């Protein structure tokens, strides 16, 4: 028990050291800082999805909808409301979070494949809205004409717009806050009811837990987290496009979570890192980069059914 706790703390420390030092070592291994930011943003998105998938046992196949709503919300806020990064993030997060919470309330009585199908359908609805509503969203061309704004702390300005290293650290702080809240929630009584539902719905119900209410709250929280990551994505690219809402992105997020290990808190981050880095390197060699990711995914599922991190953890326990 104690040894396990110590190892966990060491792993945790290692993860944060690697993340904190990323701008220094990324260039040495042929990467670039924006790639690190991308890993963090998509990693946070995959972890948000996994909050629901891995810890409540509910599979959403349309989580890109809330991610994209966050991205569009932030972009539109910067373009039309005010030139403020924090305000854009707040509005974007609220857009995706509220939409997710409302629609989630309609579907919490569905289970398994039915739940997954309805979530895809919702995702596609938002995709087509973004695709069609040219005047507001820019349609197929995507939403342009906004950029993230430097942060102002009183007289001090942090230029996250032009300095990609500063922006990386800004994303890292946002990431840390979000995953910190997630971790605390998972250790709370409410978080344990999520695990209970994942493990055995019937038992949970007959312990006095109203399952649907708890799944709905977990779903809504997951939507809030993922739209928060979506706002960061819009800030990263200074751009939002309909593909941010498309179901193939939802699928990519599921792949990241499963590949990294959905029963492990940090699994989806590793999955996202592998996914994003492979995408970056392989897509410069061939346009068929998705085949490589597909192949890797199949191998992981066949040989490490608990995912890359899940596998490591099991080894250690055994």
């Amino acid at each position, binding site marked *: 028990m104690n040894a396990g706790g110590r190892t966990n703390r060491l792993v945790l420390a290692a993860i944060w050291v690697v993340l904190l030092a990323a701008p220094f070592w990324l260039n040495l291994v042929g990467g670039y800082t924006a790639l690190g930011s991308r890993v963090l943003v998509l990693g946070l998105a995959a972890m948000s999805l996994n909050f629901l998938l891995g810890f409540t046992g509910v599979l959403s196949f349309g989580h890109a909808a809330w991610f994209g709503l966050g991205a569009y919300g932030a972009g539109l806020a910067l373009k039309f409301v005010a030139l403020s990064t924090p305000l854009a993030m707040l509005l974007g997060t609220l857009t995706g979070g509220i939409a997710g919470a409302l629609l989630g309330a309609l579907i919490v009585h569905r289970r398994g494949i039915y739940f997954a199908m309805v979530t895809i359908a919702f995702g596609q609805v938002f995709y087509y809205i973004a695709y069609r509503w040219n005047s507001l969203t820019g349609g197929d061309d995507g939403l342009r004409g906004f950029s993230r704004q430097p942060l102002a702390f009183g007289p001090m300005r942090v230029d996250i717009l032009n300095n990609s290293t500063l922006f990386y650290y800004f994303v890292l702080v946002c990431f840390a806050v979000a995953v910190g809240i997630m971790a605390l929630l998972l250790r709370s*009584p409410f978080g344990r009811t999520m695990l209970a539902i994942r493990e055995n719905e*019937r038992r949970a119900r007959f312990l006095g837990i109203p399952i649907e209410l708890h799944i709905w709250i977990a779903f809504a929280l997951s939507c809030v987290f993922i739209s928060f990551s979506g706002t960061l994505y819009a800030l990263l690219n200074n751009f939002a496009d309909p593909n941010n809402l498309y179901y193939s992105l939802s699928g990519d997020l599921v792949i990241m979570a499963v590949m990294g290990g959905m029963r492990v808190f940090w699994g989806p981050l590793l999955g996202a890192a592998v996914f994003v880095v492979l995408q970056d390197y392989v897509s410069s060699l061939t346009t068929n980069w998705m085949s490589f990711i597909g192949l890797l995914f199949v191998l992981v599922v066949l040989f490490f059914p608990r995912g890359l991190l899940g596998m490591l953890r099991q080894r250690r326990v055994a």
Partner: protein
Amino acid sequence: MNLLEVRGVSKQFGSLVAVRNVSLSVPAGQLRAIIGPNGAGKTTFFNMISGAVQPSSGSVQFDGRDVTQVPPWRRVTLGMARTFQITEIFPELSVAENLRIAVETASGMRLRPWISRRATTAVTRHVEEMLAQTGLMSKAGRLVGELAHGDQRVAEIAMALALRPRLLLLDEPTAGMGEQETFEITQLIRRLHRERELTIVLIEHDMRVVFHLADRIAVLDQGALIGEGTPEEIAADAAVQSAYLGQVAEAGAA
């Protein structure tokens, strides 16, 4: 007043009448057994008490309150806890975590996004009390899915107890158990009944267990109540005899 009062419940699945107009009154502190051959409708009847199944007609009253329309999770909060014929636990969590979830839910903390140190201590103390009472202390850190079948059944009972119920419903607590395990779980149920004066309704196939434990026995056959009484009365009852082909008389005599 009776803690549990079931009035004329029936359940129809399509054209099949699983339970036909069954009534049952259980006063506080009683240990009531429900017996009957396979397919007699015992589990369906049980499910109507706990709310897993809605009766087609009739009513269920708990502690003077009509709970027929009350959803199962809320019946639990009113003081009704149950176990299942096929063990229902949280397999990939430890025994202690299984109990912790039960204790926190019963303490009304289930929606809390944080927990104070003091509350954690109180919950832990309660969990340890349950572990000690059910003899699971040495297995507290093990994943409950990895325990032996008998220990899993005990863990499920411990979870139900952690809810501090006023009525405990046990669906075949000795199902699939060996001699020794059956003996131990029977002792545990008896202790709970005697020491905590817990009201218990249980379904059981093992007649020795039933006659050893029950204050009163209700007999179901083909969905209908065919007999009710003390173990001695049931052992002597002709209708029960014919439904059971002599098993009951043997156990009653033993």
